């Protein structure tokens, strides 16, 4: 009877789709009318997504179907829907450089920004909302930056007289070397994996701190000093860093004890045992303390569904409740001028203090990711990634690499013809000096 039983099972399996030949089951809750379909690149990790959905449900009166996808799918979905003139989303959310190449697919949001004028968006953030155009295309959603997480075990090797919250880059390097010597292996880490954000370190922290600029000073003598420093730091950094995309797991596993990374990618390490960890601002260099701002925004697709409800969601997200809860749950900071509550969980409170100290230091140099480059932003980022690979991993001479990459950077900038962005001095067309 065996073959019959097997066939019966197969037959039963085949019958199921025949009976349920519907177009598919709803996986994000967007089927109900009045739901705002929210396509975003943020909060893709499972737990972050679950927490954010809970926050959306508790804070907003409108039902939202949150749909986080990765970058490639995000771009393809928006582009193909725009080109086919059949848009199926209501609200789009992403980082500045996710939204910038797709600016043409978004409606103007000047009206909504006007309604939200009381929220207290900082001026430099408002300037970014035009995505390089003339009208505002997105409403600021949340912001983040990068700091350094320190396992308290590593403090024993801190150079004498150094304050861990006020380190210079030289002290940082000395610390890394002392830790390596004492522990027998390098214990400092950087996210240098394929999806790691390490190139933002070079763009927003290293180069501004050493040279005062990001692209205009790309091939100067100060830049050479910066990259020579980087090669030295790499020698004292865990080589497995080329596989790290997020630092929270290597930190939690004890593979590294000190790491620079995005605030949201560090918080997981300290969540279980916040007392073992210190969150500190990044070090300072000869020209100041460079730090980078990460901005996420909300956009309305042209021809999108449920427009009134989507606008309601945007207004709700700009409210104090959402802004604070997003920080509390997922470590992304508010963009509005809402005061932070005193009862933040340990790890988040530590990060908030570090972020505040970093932004408010007397010699802080605000650095932005490239503005107005559209899809070329990724290629500019590649220039910095290639510099790191050539100088640190392949040990090529710094001057030669800088000259080569400066050519590429100049070509990209000449193509784009955009004004310079912070920290470079204002100029109508940005170019490498």
């Amino acid at each position, binding site marked *: 009877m065996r073959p019959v039983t097997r066939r019966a099972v197969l037959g039963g399996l085949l019958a199921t789709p025949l009976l349920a030949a519907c177009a598919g089951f709803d996986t994000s809750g967007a089927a109900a009318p009045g739901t705002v379909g929210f396509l975003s690149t943020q909060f893709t990790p499972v737990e972050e997504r679950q927490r954010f959905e809970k926050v959306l449900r508790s804070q907003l009166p409108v039902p939202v179907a949150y749909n986080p996808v*990765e*970058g*490639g799918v995000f*771009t393809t979905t928006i582009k193909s829907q725009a080109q086919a003139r059949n848009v199926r989303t209501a609200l789009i959310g992403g980082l500045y450089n996710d939204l910038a*190449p797709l600016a043409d697919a978004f409606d103007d949001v000047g009206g909504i920004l006007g309604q939200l004028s009381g929220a207290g968006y900082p001026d430099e953030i408002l300037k970014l909302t035009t995505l390089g155009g003339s009208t505002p295309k997105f409403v600021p959603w949340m912001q983040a930056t990068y700091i350094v997480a320190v396992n308290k075990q590593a403090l024993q090797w801190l150079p004498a007289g150094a304050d861990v919250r006020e380190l210079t880059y030289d002290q940082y390097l000395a610390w890394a070397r002392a830790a390596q010597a004492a522990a027998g292996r390098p214990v400092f880490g950087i996210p240098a*994996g*394929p999806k790691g954000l390490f190139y933002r370190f070079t763009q927003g922290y290293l180069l501004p701190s050493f040279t005062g600029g990001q692209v205009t000073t790309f091939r100067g003598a100060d830049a050479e000093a910066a990259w020579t420093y980087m090669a030295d730091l790499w020698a004292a950094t865990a*080589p*497995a860093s*080329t*596989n790290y995309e997020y630092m929270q797991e290597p930190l939690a*596993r004890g*593979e590294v004890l000190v790491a620079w990374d995005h605030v949201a990618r560090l918080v997981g390490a300290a969540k279980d045992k916040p007392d073992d960890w210190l969150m500190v601002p990044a070090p300072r260099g000869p020209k100041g303390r460079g730090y980078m701002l990460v901005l996420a925004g909300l956009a309305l697709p042209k021809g999108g569904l449920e427009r009134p409800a989507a606008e309601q969601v945007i207004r709700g997200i700009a409210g104090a409740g959402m802004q604070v809860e997003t920080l509390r749950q997922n470590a992304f900071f508010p963009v509005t001028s809402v005061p932070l509550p005193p009862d933040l969980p340990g790890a988040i409170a530590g990060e908030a203090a570090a972020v505040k100290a970093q932004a408010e230091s007397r010699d802080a140099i605000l650095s932005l990711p490239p503005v107005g480059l559209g*899809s070329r*932003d*990724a*290629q500019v980022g*590649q220039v910095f990634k*290639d510099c790191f*690979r050539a100088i640190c*991993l392949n040990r090529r001479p710094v001057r030669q690499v800088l000259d080569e990459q400066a050519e590429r950077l100049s070509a990209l900038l000449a193509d784009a013809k955009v004004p310079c962005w912070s920290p470079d001095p204002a100029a109508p067309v940005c170019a490498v000096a």
Partner: protein
Amino acid sequence: MAAPTLDRDTEAPARRTRRARKGPSGLLLIAPSLVFMALLFGWPMVQGVLLAFRGDQGFTLEFVQRMVTDANFWPAVRNTLLLIVVLIPVQFAFAIAMALLLRAKPRLANVYFFVWAIPLAVSDLAAGLVWLAVLTDRGYLNSLLVGVGLPPVAWLAFDNWTSLFLAVLIAELWRATSLVLVIVVAGLQGIPRDYEEAAAVFGASPWQRLWKVILPLLRPSLQVALILRTILAFQTFAVARALTGDNFPVLVGETYRWYVTLQNPGVAAALALVVLVLSMVTSVVYLRTLRSEEVR
């Protein structure tokens, strides 16, 4: 009545008028597949090819140029080709050996076959994940070494190309041999044991039986397995990416990088065309050299 033709030679002319059998002609049988594929892939394929050559001002070779001058291009070509040249023969030898082991009817053959076919069900992303967990610095392999008192080794160190290559090789061997195994086992079912037994009676050694009896009869299955496996081998990148990040570039990995990370569909399409051309060339070679003799 016309002589029944056993001629399935591809050079047979005038197919429709030479129908010696009643029943649908070959073209009618394959027509649905042709129509289906053409409808679904026709326009997108054209668009995809155009992507590689269409710039702001019409036809341009800038994307091809950009692709060739990229620092990762030739290493990616070399790595992909090397991987294929080393991996495919090893996989086939391994799969044929496994199929023959099964054919010798050991006890628990069913259990063995099931376990050996399991990697087929594992997606390449999951396979990359598993092998990463095994080979990473604080992974299972190093846990084993430390457990027996040996020092841990950095198997996935970015500067040890050989170690990276071997890691990708072993992971791919684990993941993809099942495909060949299943095809070979299915093909072996059609080879009656009588042939082998006759050869044995006539004094052929096991090795001779393999080379002279089994493999020739297995040729159609081997040809299909070779073509499919090679084409799929050109496409794999998930395992290499999971294990090595950007340290061991392969062609389709670069395609993804240019399309998704660098947001440059033109260069990505150019890379895709390189993969297409390489796959087609190898397929044509296989089809020509492994053409089965249609003598029955």
